């Protein structure tokens, strides 16, 4: 489903007299449909930048990001803006720890805007475990964990064959975290490919393989 080859990314900080940070130094990885690959590693090792490059929130300097079945894939590293927007609608979803939606719109409406009916939105919010009395509340006042649940529901609002998860359960209490991991496991068994960054790798269930990043490379 996803094949990353030789991905390199550096940030040039022009406001700091052109300081260069080499964040990704040649990353290769592959995730098959129905597989969950976990990326772990110390802070600053490039995990989030890797996901951002795949979602095209950052532009890699070189390398390829092949999305789709072999032979019928698109290279997201070189795709046009419109092609990327189209893939975000249909193929690849990103769940982060941050809220990047309009904070004044009710949670269920935000989920519905991401691509499902109003009823489905309420059902999804129930399933990820957001308390029912918050479903029509705008997320401006949500806690970190509640925001994560909303992000997750938005990513699941329409079926996407690839989900990128950046510390998607970091702010959740243990029981919610377990519930979310079970949901992700179901998605995986239904054929969704998962590429997940975790500091604290879940011990069982959803995870198939774990790789560790260090200084911009896959170390093991």
């Amino acid at each position, binding site marked *: 489903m996803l094949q990353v080859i030789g991905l390199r990314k550096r940030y040039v900080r022009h406001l700091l007299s052109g300081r260069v940070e080499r964040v990704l130094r040649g990353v290769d990885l592959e995730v098959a449909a129905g597989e969950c690959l976990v990326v772990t590693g110390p802070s600053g090792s490039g995990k989030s930048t890797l996901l951002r490059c795949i979602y*095209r*929130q*950052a532009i890699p300097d070189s390398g390829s990001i092949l999305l789709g079945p072999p032979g019928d894939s698109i290279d997201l590293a070189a795709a046009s*803006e419109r092609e990327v*927007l189209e893939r975000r609608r249909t193929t690849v979803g990103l769940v982060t720890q941050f809220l990047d939606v309009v904070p004044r719109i009710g949670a269920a409406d935000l989920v519905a*805007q991401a691509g499902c009916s109003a009823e489905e939105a309420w059902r999804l919010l129930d399933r990820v475990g957001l308390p029912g009395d918050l479903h029509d509340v705008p997320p401006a006042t949500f806690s970190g964990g509640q925001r994560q649940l909303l992000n997750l529901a938005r990513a699941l609002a329409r079926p996407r064959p690839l989900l990128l998860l950046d510390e998607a359960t970091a702010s959740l209490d243990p029981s919610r975290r377990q519930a979310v991991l079970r949901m992700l496991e179901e998605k995986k068994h239904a054929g969704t490919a998962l590429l997940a960054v975790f500091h604290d790798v879940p011990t069982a269930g959803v995870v198939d393989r774990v790789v560790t990043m260090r200084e911009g490379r896959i170390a093991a």
Partner: protein
Amino acid sequence: MTSILELVDVSVRYGVGCERCAPADGPARCPVCGSVWACRGLSFDVGPGEVMGIVGESGSGKSTALACANLDLVPLAGRIRLLGEEVTGIGGARRRELRAEALGIVYQTPAQGLDLDLTAGGNVVSRMLAAGVRGYEALRRRASELVQATELPLARMDAVTSTFSGGMQQRVQVARALATRPPILLLDEPTSGLDVSVQARLLDLLRRIQLETQVAMLIVSHDLGVIRMLADRLLVMRQGRIVERGLTDQLLNDPRHPYTQLLVSSQLC
């Protein structure tokens, strides 16, 4: 996909120009003749249902780009296409027709876009009349539809627009712009000058209208917050040129041009 609006290599000069003017990497203001090159080699297109943003500091040429799109200005060089039709330098009846049917514009100051001596309904209806819509019932029905869609109190539909608050006047502008269901809406700093809560309401309104009607938008703003909320794609302009372009979230997360980095780092929140 046919673009709704397309600008190809558009240059606009204010002033007489001279042979030393505007080398590609020179300043926007010619040191010899004093002419200002507001746009230099500007190219972009907006497709159906797309929202394109333009950011840049004052004097970067973003409003001039919008004026070209609105057929207010004829560029010195380059081409403009609207709905696939070549419209560069077009005038007369066809220009009026296109502005009435294919384009809607919301200006920064309501006085530019509205006749403040007319009622809210009158402002909306006059645009429909210009587009050839006839019949009292039809005009009245559409006007009240729009007044409601833009969250103006229906009771104020027949009040003179000059008695409205700034935020309400902006909503009358939006209603007027949408009256003929144009495929693209041009927005020139639609929220500046409004206080923050009114700004937020207007942004929510624009977003809702975009989601519901899938109207394409070209929105010019110096406020990255406004752009982040509305635009899928973004152009960063400086001294008449596009210095960087990309998906909005990508430019905000990974700005690469020194000027874009400065813009993003200067954002208050």
